[in-house]
């Protein structure tokens, strides 16, 4: 089986050839340290400035408010830990959602150990944050709300504008982890009242190991990484110039192609979802049917377990992912799937397929045909299916 159908774009994406090409000169030719005095380093300095402008423009933000980091996790850690430490005199209460990425959840757990209080607001059956619970959670000592733009597992898009307005009304900082959404959805930090935003390069056909944190002017934040005076003395360390250039180029392309690309992905996603739900019985779609990322489909197949499914798909040359416990290395299935109220056994049988630019209808047809066979094969092996069939044929 030589075929490879990559449907795990939420995990990572290929770096575009144009992006690699843009990066290459900054390894071998214009390798100067941007902090150096001599003219040779100006190319590095200018390249960073250009990338920063491109990114700022994509968010309707000020270039001075974009800070490069090593990726989404660093941005999330920085945003939460280092604003919490500054604003702790105002209060020690933070609000987030129950279905955040672990970069947020584990940072919140860390902050709890440091004496902060965190409220984890629940979501409805489609994964949309409960706005009434969020409103009710606000207290005089609430300093920060952090809610992801769109969920990495089930693709649900959150009511960011409403949350931003609510935070502003109450004088609370608002951070959003936009790692999955950035490049797929238009984002205007002013319109949405976003104070801080995390993003990552490798989710939008940029390189790995580079990301940024948008920090609105006036927000007090301490350094996570101490050292030299890079990034306006807020994030130390010699800049990852090729990475920054690559990120800038990836963002430029993502913005230019967004409408066309996402329209095509939505069409393909809907085709996949409709066929799977119609042709494979005892299957559900996880997340909101329409209010979801253009490239995300997440299913639960009753009576089977996700890791088995992934291995069999892999043997057919198909790359996907699952929220099953066996794929997470713990006994519990994904907190996101449990968060939307799925029973454990249904959560174990989940499959996430995330599309990219290069996927075709023909590939999706191949995936569906294989999926039908594999699901049936695993069900024929499953005692749960046997019991169900016996009970229902009685």
């Amino acid at each position, binding site marked *: 089986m030589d075929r490879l159908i990559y449907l795990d774009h939420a995990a990572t994406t290929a770096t575009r050839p144009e992006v690699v090409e843009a990066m290459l000169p900054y390894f071998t030719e214009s390798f100067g340290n941007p902090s150096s005095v001599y003219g040779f380093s100006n190319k590095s300095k200018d390249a960073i400035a250009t990338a920063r402008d491109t990114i700022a423009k994509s968010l309707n933000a000020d270039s001075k408010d974009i800070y490069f980091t090593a990726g989404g996790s660093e941005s999330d850690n920085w945003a939460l830990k280092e604003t919490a430490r500054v604003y702790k005199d105002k209060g020690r209460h933070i609000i987030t959602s129950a279905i955040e990425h672990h970069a947020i959840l584990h940072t919140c757990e860390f902050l709890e150990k440091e004496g902060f209080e965190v409220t984890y607001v629940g979501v409805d059956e489609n994964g949309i944050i409960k706005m009434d619970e969020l409103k009710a959670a606000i207290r005089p000592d609430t300093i920060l709300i952090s809610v992801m733009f769109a969920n990495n597992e089930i693709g649900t898009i959150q009511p960011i504008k409403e949350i931003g307005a609510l935070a502003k009304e109450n004088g609370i900082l608002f951070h959003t982890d936009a790692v999955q959404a950035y490049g797929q959805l238009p984002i205007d930090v002013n319109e949405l009242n976003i104070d801080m935003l995390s993003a990552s390069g490798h989710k939008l056909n940029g390189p790995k190991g580079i990301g940024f944190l948008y920090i609105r002017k006036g927000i007090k934040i301490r350094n996570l990484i101490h050292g030299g005076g890079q990034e306006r003395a807020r994030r130390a360390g010699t800049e990852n110039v090729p990475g920054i250039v690559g990120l800038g180029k990836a963002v430029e392309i993502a913005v230019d192609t967004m409408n066309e690309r996402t329209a095509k992905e939505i069409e393909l996603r809907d085709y996949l979802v409709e066929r799977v739900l119609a042709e494979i019985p*005892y*299957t*559900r779609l996880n997340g909101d049917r329409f209010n979801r990322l253009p490239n995300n489909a997440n299913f*639960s197949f*009753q*009576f*089977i*377990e996700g*890791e*088995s499914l992934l*291995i069999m798909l892999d*043997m057919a040359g198909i790359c996907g992912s699952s929220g*099953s*416990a*066996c794929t997470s*290395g713990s*006994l519990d*299935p994904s907190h996101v799937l449990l968060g939307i109220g799925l*029973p*454990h*056994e*249904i959560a*174990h049988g989940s499959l996430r397929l995330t599309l990219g630019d290069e996927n075709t209808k023909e590939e999706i047809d191949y995936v569906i045909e294989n999926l039908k066979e594999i699901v049936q094969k695993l069900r*024929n*092996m*499953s*005692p*749960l*299916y*046997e*019991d*169900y069939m016996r*009970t229902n044929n009685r």
Partner: protein
Amino acid sequence: MYSEKVMDHFQNPRNVGEIENASGVGTVGNAKCGDIMRIYFDIDENQVIRDVKFKTFGCGAAVATSSMATELVKGKTIYEALEVTNKAVMDALDGLPPVKVHCSLLAEEAIHAALWDYAEKNGIKIEGLEKPKSDISEHEEEEEY
């Protein structure tokens, strides 16, 4: 992640199925944890396991350990089957990743549970066999999608 033998037993599992009017059936694990194994024995009058089938809900390792366990007990007497430990199953599969060792324990328990069922049905006591501790949980929710 998995040895070639594990992959082989996962891709081509031996003895998948059910046995009508089985001499003994054992089901262990629970759906909440993501693993359920069921083993069926057809045991003859000489207490030899004439046929064995299994069904498993679980990961690749769970399927492979079930398959290997059935291979190891087929044609054996019930006392020989009782000697098939989780370690024997793991060794026969050329090992398992540490997080998957519990799958081999489940296979051992499934054999014991099926033997226990056989003993109960026939009103006999199998020396050295204890009542299996792990048992399938009730299906509190039979939701359909």
